């Protein structure tokens, strides 16, 4: 037997649907193995996860609260990756956005709530965007690899946050805890449901996804971003200002990640601390890849990943299985999606072994 790989010219919708179903089924089966090894019944574990993530209004609210920053960091990765700008630094840009929100929102200015929220958002967006401008400019001027620079800047920014919350921004009323002064009340993002944690940041994420979708698909800027990402040489030849386009992408990407930080500070915690994000920036890369870099798909992927994490936490409390299972599920899903992408692009053909040519059978 020989296996031949051939590229497909088109992928019918039925095939796409089938691949998604097979992928989901394969994920469930594969994840059942470590669950069973940990000594629990996979069915019970899945049931508990489902209940913990979407089984009640509270569970849904928790999932959406978690999804809000993931949508924004996912969009940040998606738009950058579309232009082949490898921004691995959404985590740092998220913290930069949070710093911006605290600087503006903790008493520097006093405005009525809608304006105050807008000011805090703007500050966070600008902070994230400016941080991403550094690797983009270093790449353009000196050819510095943005993967390395954005990744390392994450640690720089988190250390800066630790310094700030121990020093200049330290809250004197926090009983020594390393956290910043709180935002003023006018800057707090309103909750979407009474007595639930889900906040305005979710709507910001949804709006950002919608706007990004329109920009990429329907505007000259989006055209330029796609052309630059998919064939830089041809884009340059056709007169698209590729360097300027990359800078715009850097600003948008960093800004979106910055907004995620604003949401966490102004929507959930109320203050800045060095444990603000449990890796939302890195998870955003996974979200974007799961979504195939589509802005609308990012929303669904973010909700899925958030549900897995929230559900796994809840299941872990009930069964004693480590909630690291959530990381495993997300990682496996991503691998399976990448593998399924291969089957969408290529067709496998199985043939008789070498030498058995039809002409020789007689």
């Amino acid at each position, binding site marked *: 037997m020989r296996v031949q790989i*051939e590229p497909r*010219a088109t992928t019918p919708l039925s095939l796409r649907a089938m691949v998604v179903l097979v992928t989901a089924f394969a994920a469930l089966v594969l994840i059942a193995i470590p669950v069973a090894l940990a000594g629990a019944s996979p069915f019970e574990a899945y049931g508990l996860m489902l209940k913990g993530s979407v089984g009640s209004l509270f569970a849904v609210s928790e999932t959406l609260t978690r999804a809000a920053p993931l949508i924004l960091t996912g969009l940040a990765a998606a738009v950058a990756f579309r232009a082949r700008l490898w921004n691995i630094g959404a985590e740092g840009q998220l913290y930069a956005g949070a710093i911006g929100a605290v600087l503006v929102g903790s008493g520097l200015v006093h405005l009525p709530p809608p304006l105050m929220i807008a000011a805090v958002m703007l500050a966070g967006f600008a902070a994230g965007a400016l941080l991403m401008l550094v690797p983009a400019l270093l790449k353009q001027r000196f050819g510095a690899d943005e993967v390395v620079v954005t990744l390392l800047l994450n640690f720089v920014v988190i250390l800066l946050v630790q310094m700030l919350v121990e020093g200049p921004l330290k809250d004197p009323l926090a009983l020594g805890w390393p956290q910043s002064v709180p935002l003023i009340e006018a800057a707090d993002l309103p909750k979407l449901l009474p007595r639930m944690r889900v906040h305005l940041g979710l709507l910001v994420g949804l709006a950002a996804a919608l706007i990004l979708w*329109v920009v990429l698909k*329907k*505007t*000259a800027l*989006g*055209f*330029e971003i*796609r*052309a630059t990402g*998919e*064939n830089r*040489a*041809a*884009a*340059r*030849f*056709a*007169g*698209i200002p590729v360097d300027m386009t990359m800078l715009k992408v850097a600003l948008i990407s960093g800004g979106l990640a910055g907004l995620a930080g604003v949401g966490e500070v102004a929507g959930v915690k109320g203050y800045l601390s060095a444990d603000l994000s449990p890796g939302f920036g890195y998870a955003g890369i996974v979200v974007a890849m799961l979504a195939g870099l589509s802005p609308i798909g990012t929303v669904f992927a973010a909700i899925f990943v958030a549900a897995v994490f929230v559900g796994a936490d809840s299941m872990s409390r009930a069964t004693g299985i480590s909630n690291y299972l959530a990381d495993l599920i997300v990682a496996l899903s991503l691998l399976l999606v990448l593998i399924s992408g291969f089957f969408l692009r290529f067709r496998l*053909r199985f043939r008789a072994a*070498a*030498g058995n*040519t*039809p*002409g020789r059978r007689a």
Partner: protein
Amino acid sequence: MPAGPDDDVVLALEGITKRFGALVANDHLDLVLRRGEILALLGENGAGKTTLMNILFGHYLPEAGTVRIADAGGVLSPLPHGSPGAALRAGIGMVHQHFTLAENLSGIDNIVLGTEPMLLPYRQRSAARLRLAQIIAESGLDVDLDVRVAALTVGERQRVEILKALYRNVRVLILDEPTAVLTPQEANGLFEILRRLAAAGLAVIFISHKLGEVLAVSHRIAVLRVGRKAGELVTAEADRRTIAELMVGKAVPAVHRSAPVVGHPVLEFERVTLRQRSARQSLQGASFAVRSGEIVGLAGVSGNGQQALAALTCGLALPDSGEIRLFGERLRRADPRGLVATGVARIPEDRNSDGVVGTMSVAENIAIEDVRGAAYNRFGLLDGRAMAARAREAITGYDIRCPGPDAETRLLSGGNMQKLILARVLEREPRVIIANQPTRGLDVGAQADVHRRIIDARDRGAAVLLISEDLDELFALADRLLVIHAGDITDAGPTGELDRGTVGMLMAGHPHAANEAATA
């Protein structure tokens, strides 16, 4: 020689069939090669020439068919499929289009590489030298074997490649597009050598898509078209037109052109210098002008500064010194959009890498130069309907074969991709056209179409700069020729008063020899 008796057969391919998915690359092909014969394998891109040779050489497995090759005694026996080692042992040698030489080794080391026993503690250079001296004396493949390959010219490297094959006692020598990198003189030298080798009994397969050289060198011509043998003829009895029609499968429209009506200079270079990675590829103080209503051809062997010139004229670079004037105005910014707006049409050398974004649609690739323009933008959004309408016009007007405006451009054939680029740049009635290798890799029919469009544009009054490595094309289209060698541009004068020999001398960098050839 050509029509010898059958016991002279050294290679026989019978019923070779090879499929790639739905594509039948070789469809029951039969081919016979005799001792001392040069067989030209002629066909357009995608006709199946390379596939057939890869099967012969054992790189691909055919679905059906047999390859038989004569041993030293002349007895034909089957060659096992899929074994390059067996092909080499049977005496088949191949000179690839892209050479397979180690540049950091000398010529002789490249030649003996792989023929020496691995565990021998010393090397038998003198024996190898003796044998090579004999081969060189017999074949005329003169080259200094002690120089590192990196320091050799392309023509000399090719000689090393052929020597490498001869050193291994080949009985069948396959040359894949051997003249693509040579000046006309070098090509003539190669033909001379091939004739001598054939006279000494070697069987040669000469793969090409250029009619002229096939007629010049071969004894017999086998024409392939979409995987089948479209015809086989004896070269002495063949004429250009018949062969071209066999290749394309239909009558090829001849290109008619009238005398140029030349106007004012439109594109002027004045002592323009642009440094590139190597001195040879840099532009050294080039001065010339292209006037409206004329096609100026730029001849030259690739890698002699054409890329620098193209980058300057396409708005991708500014000169290090000197001045470029367009419509009398000095160019001050490298700005492709500005050039397009002032009426410059640019056809890039490499359509796949510079011409189109393969994953974007046909409509998007047609609109790409003007994506910020008023024609495609309404209320800050792109006007998809305007783009699709424009694409449909282009598809019918330029006969672009594709499923529709939304089709992904990467799925188009090379010829259709080129038509797309022509539709994009010629539709606005440009006043200057920079055409860089506009027909490279296109079939004869598509070539004629591109040529007709360029001549039409000239007749409308456009100034055309045609950069090409194909002398046939330059002599067919250009009113005047410039020749570039190592970054120096020489004005060779009107095409009607030139012959290939003169141009070839200039391409090789011998202006004085060229003058003598012209006056002789």
